[in-house]
């Protein structure tokens, strides 16, 4: 048995599992997206384009765009919140570094639904925050049932997926690079911009992708924190499956969503590949 034959065997269980239980089912979704619902309300495979005509209806495209907008905002805010804290821990965490990271992760062990619901209790019109504000004479502010609440909930839900990759790339970066930057007369801001930031590009990219893509498909935040105008594509799809019982339409919405996302996914994979061809730049990755 050849060397490579031996190692290839390790690919088999995982490869097979992912193919049969991930790729094939996704193909099923694709197949069903061309199907229809019969008189008894059952989903039937066929080749019809009706669902796509519906999915691209001007009614639903804004829902998709809204979801992408929310997810982009979420990724941007996560980056703004996450980068400095990752930087602080990696550079100044000292011996508490690992404790600080563990503390970031702890809130994520309270169930996502419970955590999100806690925001409702905090931010409701007669909730804790408003009653505190009331005590200092600020009149009631509506936080929940707004797009801001949805984005806030998403940020809270996915922040850790931004921090960890960035932290990892900062941690891997050679600290002397920053010193070299300063030595070469870089102001701290310039050093950050021209040395630290490019060195951690891959971590930032990974973080953004890991936040953005799941956030697009989220339906919990909009359901619990949203208002009448914060309907997201995840809610739309979920309801086609469990409320409206229109699986084929739900499938086609899923496919359309994936099409929109695949542009981002492909872009990410491409950039990773480009990084690999340029070993100097990839050093930081």
């Amino acid at each position, binding site marked *: 048995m050849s060397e490579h034959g031996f190692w290839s065997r390790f690919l088999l269980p995982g490869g097979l599992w992912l193919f049969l239980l991930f*790729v094939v089912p996704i193909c099923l979704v694709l197949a069903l997206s061309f199907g229809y619902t019969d008189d008894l309300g059952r989903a039937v495979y066929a080749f019809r384009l009706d669902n796509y005509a519906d999915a691209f209806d001007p009614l639903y495209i804004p829902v998709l765009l809204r979801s992408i907008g929310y997810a982009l905002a979420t990724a941007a805010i996560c980056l703004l919140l996450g980068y400095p804290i990752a930087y602080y821990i990696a550079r100044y965490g000292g011996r508490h570094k690992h404790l600080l990271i563990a503390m970031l992760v702890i809130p994520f062990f309270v169930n996502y639904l419970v955590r999100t619901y806690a925001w409702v209790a905090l931010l409701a019109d007669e909730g804790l925050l408003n009653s505190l504000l009331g005590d200092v004479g600020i009149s009631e502010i509506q936080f929940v049932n707004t797009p801001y609440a949805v984005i806030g909930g998403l940020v809270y839900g996915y922040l850790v997926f931004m921090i960890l990759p960035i932290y990892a790339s900062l941690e891997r970066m050679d600290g002397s690079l920053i010193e070299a930057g300063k030595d070469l007369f870089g102001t701290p801001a310039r050093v950050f911009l021209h040395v630290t930031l490019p060195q951690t590009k891959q971590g930032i990219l990974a973080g953004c992708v890991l936040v953005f893509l799941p956030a697009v498909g989220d339906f919990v935040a909009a359901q619990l924190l*949203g208002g009448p105008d914060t309907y997201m594509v995840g809610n739309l799809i979920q309801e086609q499956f469990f409320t409206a019982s229109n699986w084929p339409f739900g499938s086609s919405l899923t496919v359309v969503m994936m099409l929109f996302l695949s542009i981002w996914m492909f872009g990410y994979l491409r950039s990773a590949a480009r990084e690999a061809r340029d070993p100097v730049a990839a050093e930081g990755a």
Partner: protein
Amino acid sequence: MSALDPRLSRRQLLRAGAGGALGLYGLGALGGCTVSRPIEKPESTAAVKPEIDGDILLYNWAQYMDPDIKKRFSEKYGVAVNEVNFDNLEAMVTKLRAGGHYDLIWPSTEYAFRLQQEGLLHRFHRDSLAHADGISSFYDGGWWDPNNEYTIPYAYYTTGIAWRNDVVSGMAGSWNDLTNPDGAGKMFILDDFQEAIGEANLLNGWDLNTADPNQLEVSKQTLLEQKEFARGISTNSVQNLVNGSAVIHQAWNGDIVNVRNQVDNPEDFSYETCKEGVPVGSDLMCIPITARSPGTALKFMDWIIEPDNAAQNVTWNGYPQPVEGGKQAFAGLVKDEPSIDVDIEELGDGGMEYRLDNAEDRALWNQVWTEVKAS
């Protein structure tokens, strides 16, 4: 997570894509197949007898039954009583059609009728139950179960409007009250396609269950106008009212009982039914054909409608039960706010129930509701 840096070339991506395409080709063979398999139905159609024949699995709304009642049943008969929850009826039917072996389910009248039509329910004789006499006569020979063979009522409710009388004034007992200016931006519509469209139908003076596309189009416009006015679309009326987000809320009467139980100022929370029409809903108990222990399930139904248990359960979940004990308990709960109470016998004529008889109508309603939410 750190090493999320695949070193991929375009060629590798293409190769992976080719693999996916190959899989698709294989799926071409699926054309015409339905997704879920038909349920295997038992050949025997004999009526179920109330006798212990194994553990049971309940499939119910969340927090709709006092756990203590299950516990005492379990202890008394030495069988396990398990429970799983759904958050809407369509999801319940979906999982049931997928062949789930539930022993006891809680459909509305409409869903019970559909399931029975599909042959998915077990038959039983109501008089084989010890406490069947206590059942309100409204449930005797209803359209959904003319021969009393498939269902036992669990609870009933009306749909109306709950409001904060310390903030909102001028409520007139009409569905128009949803857009009372005092509640602007603090009004909620129920996140239920039938309750929402039904309310709009009533407001427009149409039949509650109209499937006329033109009428539904007008109702859709009504809903869109209401949505402009609304704070949200939600079934969580209890929390929305308690935490002050809502001052006007389309709501089920039982929820108001729960609201008033949770706040310091229960007198500020009112409830009204509307003159255009009062949707009435009944949740029933049925035994699916896939049940593994139909006998125990029937026995358990009997246990639920036993007067003391009914009273205990009503006190726990805040919804009236149309049986002896349950009715009285509910009357006691709402004696401060009689509007919440509802006498099911009286509603026999004035009340209206949701009922969409075929898949096309349902699809149309769902379509309208999806469009309202997505707009």
